C-alpha cells in the first residue's frame, strides 16, 4: 500500500483534502499486550462489528471508510485496493455519496519514521536496510527499505569505547553486548514484522582501531562481520541466513565518553549466499 496507492498523487490529494486519514498497526491492538488504550481498541472493534452488521468485509489488513459520525460505511480487503485505480474508486464513491467537506489537510503532513524519545545521554541510531531490487520492481514487502530506530543507553553506548585511554593505533573489541544491540538488525526486508526476537546471531565481530586523538575528540574505525539467521515469515520456521562485513567510523568526546558521530555500513552483505543487500547506520542528531 505504502509504495503503491498511498504514494500516488491523486490518492494523496483525496486523502488530504477530503478525508481524515489514519493507519494503525495490528500489533498495537493485540489482546495479549496492547499498546493503545482500551477505548482505542474498543473503537476498532466497533468498526469491525459494524462491518459485520453491514455485511461488508472485515479483516486485519484492511481499509475501512467511516462516515463523519465515525461509523463504518465501506470496507475493502487490502488485496482489492493495492491497485491505485481501485482505491481511488473506493475513495471517490464515498466522497460522492457523503457530499462532505473538502479543504486543507486537517493534520499537517509530517515524516512518519521519526526518532523515538530517548533519555539524555543515550545514543540514537537510525538503521536503513535495503535488499537488492528495492523499489516497485522489488514487489510487495521490498518496495521500500526497512528502518529501525535503535536507542542505546549511555552505558551501552560506552561499549563502543576503549577501556583504556585512547592511543592512536590501538585496537580493541567493541563490547559484544553493545555490538549485538546493533548487529541483530542487519538483515534485509522481510514479511516478519517482528524484529529482534526471531533473530539469532551465529557469529559476530566488531573491532575498533583508534585513528586520531585531537582537541579532546577521539576518532576510531570500526571493522567487523556478522552472521545471523531469522525467519522470513512471521511465526513460521523459515530461516534465512545473512552474512555481512562492515566498515564504519565514529568519534567521541574524551571528557565524557559521549559519542558525537557514528556511521557504519555493510561492505558486502548477502542473504542465503546469493542475494545482496545493504545496511547503513548513522547517529541521529537532535
Amino acid at each position: 500500500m505504502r509504495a503503491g496507492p498511498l504514494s500516488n498523487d491523486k490518492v494523496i490529494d483525496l486523502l488530504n483534502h477530503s478525508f481524515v486519514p489514519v493507519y494503525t498497526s495490528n500489533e498495537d491492538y493485540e489482546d495479549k499486550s496492547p499498546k493503545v488504550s482500551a477505548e482505542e481498541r474498543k473503537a476498532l472493534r466497533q468498526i469491525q462489528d459494524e462491518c459485520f452488521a453491514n455485511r461488508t468485509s472485515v479483516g486485519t489488513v484492511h481499509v475501512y471508510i467511516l462516515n463523519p459520525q465515525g461509523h463504518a460505511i465501506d470496507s475493502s480487503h487490502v488485496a482489492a485496493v493495492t491497485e491505485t485505480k481501485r482505491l481511488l474508486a473506493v475513495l471517490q464513491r464515498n466522497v460522492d455519496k457523503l457530499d462532505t467537506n473538502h479543504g486543507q489537510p486537517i493534520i499537517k503532513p509530517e515524516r512518519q519514521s521519526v526518532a523515538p524519545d530517548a533519555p539524555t545521554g543515550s545514543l540514537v541510531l537510525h538503521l536503513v536496510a535495503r535488499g537488492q531490487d528495492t523499489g516497485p520492481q522489488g514487489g510487495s514487502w521490498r518496495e521500500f527499505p526497512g528502518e529501525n530506530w535503535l536507542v542505546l543507553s549511555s552505558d551501552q553506548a560506552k561499549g563502543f569505547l576503549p577501556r583504556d585511554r585512547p592511543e592512536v593505533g590501538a585496537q580493541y573489541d567493541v563490547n559484544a553486548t553493545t555490538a549485538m544491540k546493533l548487529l541483530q538488525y542487519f538483515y534485509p526486508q522481510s514479511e516478519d514484522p517482528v524484529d529482534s526476537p526471531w533473530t539469532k546471531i551465529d557469529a559476530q565481530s566488531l573491532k575498533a582501531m583508534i585513528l586520531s586523538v585531537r582537541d579532546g575528540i577521539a576518532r576510531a574505525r570500526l571493522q567487523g562481520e556478522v552472521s545471523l539467521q531469522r525467519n522470513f515469515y512471521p511465526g513460521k520456521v523459515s530461516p534465512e541466513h545473512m552474512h555481512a562485513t562492515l566498515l564504519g567510523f565514529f568519534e567521541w568526546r574524551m571528557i565524557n565518553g559521549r559519542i558525537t558521530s557514528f556511521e557504519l555500513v555493510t561492505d558486502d552483505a548477502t542473504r542465503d549466499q546469493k542475494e545482496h543487500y545493504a545496511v547503513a547506520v548513522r547517529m541521529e542528531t537532535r
Partner: protein
Amino acid sequence: MKRACCVVVLMFAFSARADSANEACESPKVIVPRPSDSAQWAAWVEQRVKELQPTPLERKFDQIGWVHTILEAQKLAKSHHRPVFLFTHDGRMNTGRC
C-alpha cells in the same frame, strides 16, 4: 489466513506494477565496492550512508496528513464533517519492517 492474504496481496501488487512504475525512480545501489585505498574509506562510508537512505519517492506517503489514532480521527471527522480513511495492517508501515 494471514499467509493467504499475503499471497493475494502479492498477486495484486504485481498486477499493480503499471501504476507504480510510472512513479519509479532509480533505487540506491546495494553493491558499491569499497575502495582499495584505506585513505578513501571514510569518504566511501559517508557516501554510502547518504545514498542508502530512503528516497523522497520512498517517503512519499509522508505527504499525507496522518492522524495518530482512530479516536482522534473520529473526533476530527465529526468536527470537520469529513469521512475517515482507516488502514489497518501488520507490522510498521512507517519503517517498512513488514
